[in-house]
């Protein structure tokens, strides 16, 4: 259980570091969905009830962390994503870069669609904007590109906290 907390803590630190680091690299117009990467990682490593609870906590933290959003939205998206991902990932190993990027890209698009759907249903201030769709797709692309690095980081933390390396780690 502690290793899951480590993964969540790393995801949280990445979220905090994201804005200043991207600004430092001159990429302030991009953003990466670290929460989504952590969810997919947990779905592939811990597809059971514990993973689900951890993902729900991570989603809730993200909700409070991101200004402007509706509380509970990220929690819902991450939980649904986890439940879908665990059934898909039981047939697919994320031990290569390209499949991983594809899974993350598809998950990001799914997350964007869920965001739009939940906004329509629950957010009174919501009104459709094509800009949001484009920004979401840009985020999906950026997340897919950075996903191998984030997975490597999560893998490292997860492996360290288990005192042994996972043979399915990336770039093997």
């Amino acid at each position, binding site marked *: 259980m502690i290793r899951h907390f480590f993964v969540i803590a790393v995801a949280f630190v990445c*979220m*905090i*570091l*994201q*804005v*200043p*680091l991207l600004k*430092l690299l001159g990429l*302030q*117009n991009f*953003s990466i969905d670290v929460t989504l990467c952590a969810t997919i990682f947990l779905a592939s490593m811990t597809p*059971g*009830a514990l993973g*689900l*609870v951890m993902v*729900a906590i991570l*989603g809730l*933290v993200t909700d*409070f*962390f*991101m*200004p*402007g*959003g*509706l*509380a*509970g*939205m990220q*929690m*819902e998206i991450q*939980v*649904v994503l986890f*439940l879908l991902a665990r059934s898909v990932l039981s047939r697919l190993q994320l031990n290569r870069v390209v499949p991983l990027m594809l899974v993350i890209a598809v998950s990001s698009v799914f997350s964007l669609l869920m*965001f739009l759907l*939940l906004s329509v249903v*629950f*957010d*009174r*201030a*919501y*009104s459709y*904007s094509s*800009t*949001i769709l484009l*920004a*979401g797709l*840009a*985020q999906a692309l950026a997340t897919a590109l950075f996903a191998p690095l984030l997975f490597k980081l999560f893998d490292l933390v997860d492996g360290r906290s288990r005192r042994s390396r996972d043979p399915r780690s990336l770039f093997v």
Partner: protein
Amino acid sequence: MWYWLFRHRLSVLGTLLVILPVLIMYIAGNSRHESGRLETAVGTVAGWSQEGVGEAVESVDGFGARVRSLFSFNDEMSRLKAENERLLGEALTARRFSDENGELRRLLGLRESRDDLKMMPAEIVVRDVNPYFRIERIRLKVPEGVEGARPTPGNAVITDVGLIGRVTEMRGAFSDVMLVSDYRSRVAAQVSGTGVIGMVVGSGRKAGYVARLQVSMTEPILQKGAAVVTSGHDRVFPRGIEIGYILDPEKRKQAGPFMEYDIGLAVDPATAEIVMVVTEMAVADALKAFVVK
């Protein structure tokens, strides 16, 4: 029963964790303004950590630059460079203080020029962290000896140059500010010197700080560069605060019953560090006199 629950724990948990956020969203959607204790606590922690990490990354970057420069030359050159950098650092610090001083003076000027408004200063802590909303998180600087001066959702956030947005949520000492460029933002506006009134609607674009002005189809074509200011009709934003200027009237387009103009916004939030929150308008005091008790 416990055995059944244990056996089907994933399904039970999955169902609960799908329903729970829906309930949270429903409650949050109906009361979006004041946060609960948990939201306030987590929001405050997030605000402090975001502010701290932002400052830490900036200092690490400065330190890294100094280390690189020290190792790139011989000892004497290194000493001279270090000396030079120290002086440059001092000059930059002086410049920063000077800029900050200038900004504070301008804000003080704004405060004096708009004595019809009660304002309090706030510092921008976080800029855009997600692709969907144009929200910034600010930390309020409550002046000493001022009791009860606390912004509420809906309060306008301005600088000496113009309008930034409005407070949408309070989380302890931190507030979320919806920028004028957020696609959900609506500001009652008028074109200065023409009497044309309309509504400024956020564009939602991350790159390029622009919005759209919607005016009636019957209005004459607006001039390029015409200033757009708040009209005060929405009773949210005080009258006469500059929002922006008309960009290119040739690119105007029809949107339903309105004519839409692109406007460049007066304030680029990326350059603003300290802002003023309008906690109360004098007109509000005047209106209280008419309240039937």
